[in-house]
């Protein structure tokens, strides 16, 4: 696999999977804050 392809593949995975992980994290933290604050 060429270097350019590997770089793009890694960037795509970091961006998309990272976006998913960040969305879940923000949602979970917000839920905890809401629960704690009643």
């Amino acid at each position, binding site marked *: *696999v060429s270097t*350019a392809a590997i770089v*793009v593949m890694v960037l795509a995975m970091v961006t*998309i999977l990272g976006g998913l992980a960040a969305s*879940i994290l*923000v*949602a979970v933290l917000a839920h905890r804050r809401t629960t704690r604050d009643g």
Partner: protein
Amino acid sequence: VTEQRERWGTRTGFLLAAIGSAVGLGNIWRFPYVAYDNGGGAFLLPYLIALLSAGIPLLVLEYALGHRYRGSAPLTFRRLHRRAELLGWWQVGVCLLIASYYSVVIAWAGAYTFYAVDEAWGDDPDAFFTGDFLGAVDPGQLGGLRWPVLLPLLLVWAVALLVLFRGVRRGIELANRVMIPLLVLSFGALVVRALTLEGAGTGLDAFFTPDWSAMGDSGVWVAAFGQIFFSLSVGFAIMITYASYLPRDADLSGNAFIAGFSNSSFELLAGIGVFAALGFLATTSGDAVEEVATEGVGLAFVVFPAVISEMPGANAVFGVLFFGSLVVAGLSSLISIVEASVAAIDDKFRLGRRRTVVLVGGGTALVSLLYATAGGVNFLDVVDNFVNLFGVAVVGLVEVLVVAWVVRQVRPLEQHARVLSAIPLRRWWAVALTVVTPLLLGWVTVDNLVTELTEPYSTADGTYPVAFVVGFGWGAAALALAIGVVLTLPRWAAGVSLTAPAEEVRT
């Protein structure tokens, strides 16, 4: 009086159902080729921009609409504005047409899950698919019913209607709690196996190597926005309906980001798996990847059987994983498409869920028999193309224009969603909906129209007669609108409140 509406049992249940609706056949057989054909790795940049500037804002809009107005698409739009009801029924018309042929493709995949066990397609998957399996006849001819298609089709409808019969929580939510983990596991296993095949690197090279010059091609941007739009199940009643079952304190933007990124994660996974497999096929056959790369029905039922036959071992397992994944991905989407119609009819006529499921689901199942005939594949191909390009895309564009520019409800919906959203909406959301999405969806629609008028839709060898394309292609797109008009005319059942429910959220 507070209307009793079904509710999701849990947030995870809603998310799995929303992801199950978005992740469908297109994720597996459309995205990989669209990306490859539009700049390879470079395509991912406009794709991500489209996701953030149009896809997720549209998802938030539809979640906010369904959550604020607590109804299926027609009831939601009726409550939004007295004259907007037709928009909801037009979307239901699109859903009914799509469900009628989408179920047949799932049936094909179901049949192929069994064929994969002993590679029933032999040495010529193309001849087997069009000849032995479909018994394809000339465009416009019906031929007789095809038993190899009819039997799995009946099974597909039985499962879908049983799930819908059981309702939102015990049916749709429960089914997706089983199907989505199963899909991720089975497709994940397939990708791992594909990556270990000889030549997988060649395929990944073809898929990810960026052609940055493509960024200057407007067609690439149209393809990126089109892919995001068609992939997220927005614009045709589903997400509005699903959001109407959310609890009062649901996190709208958080759910939209999770569903949107989950859908894209699966598309990326599919791109890796499909192109690793195509690289293997190219290597074993001595062809270039571009000669074996294709999309849609050809990829699933001609190219993949060839990949399976060339495998060095565990061919049947690979085949069952691939076609099984298609079945599960398709079924979870089909359920959402039919639910959008069932909820709409039940909201308006108050027949009760079970009677409505029998009426709507049974009626759509009967229509789907058209596509289970020997000539069905031609009808399916043409109807699919026109209903997507001039049904889903146009009604989605009209939806955004109506909400943003005709009834001007983006601001109130933003206020409704903002209090509930973990991820702040701010100015970007309003700009995305009032400017970016209408412009880009309008551009996609005009581009599709120009293409269709300059190069009328046909097969690669140009065998569709003009009358066939006009009658069944343009006819199907017009039929979706006609269904919408017909269903708008009757009065709502007694007791259905047509005014917006009281705002439950403090802004």
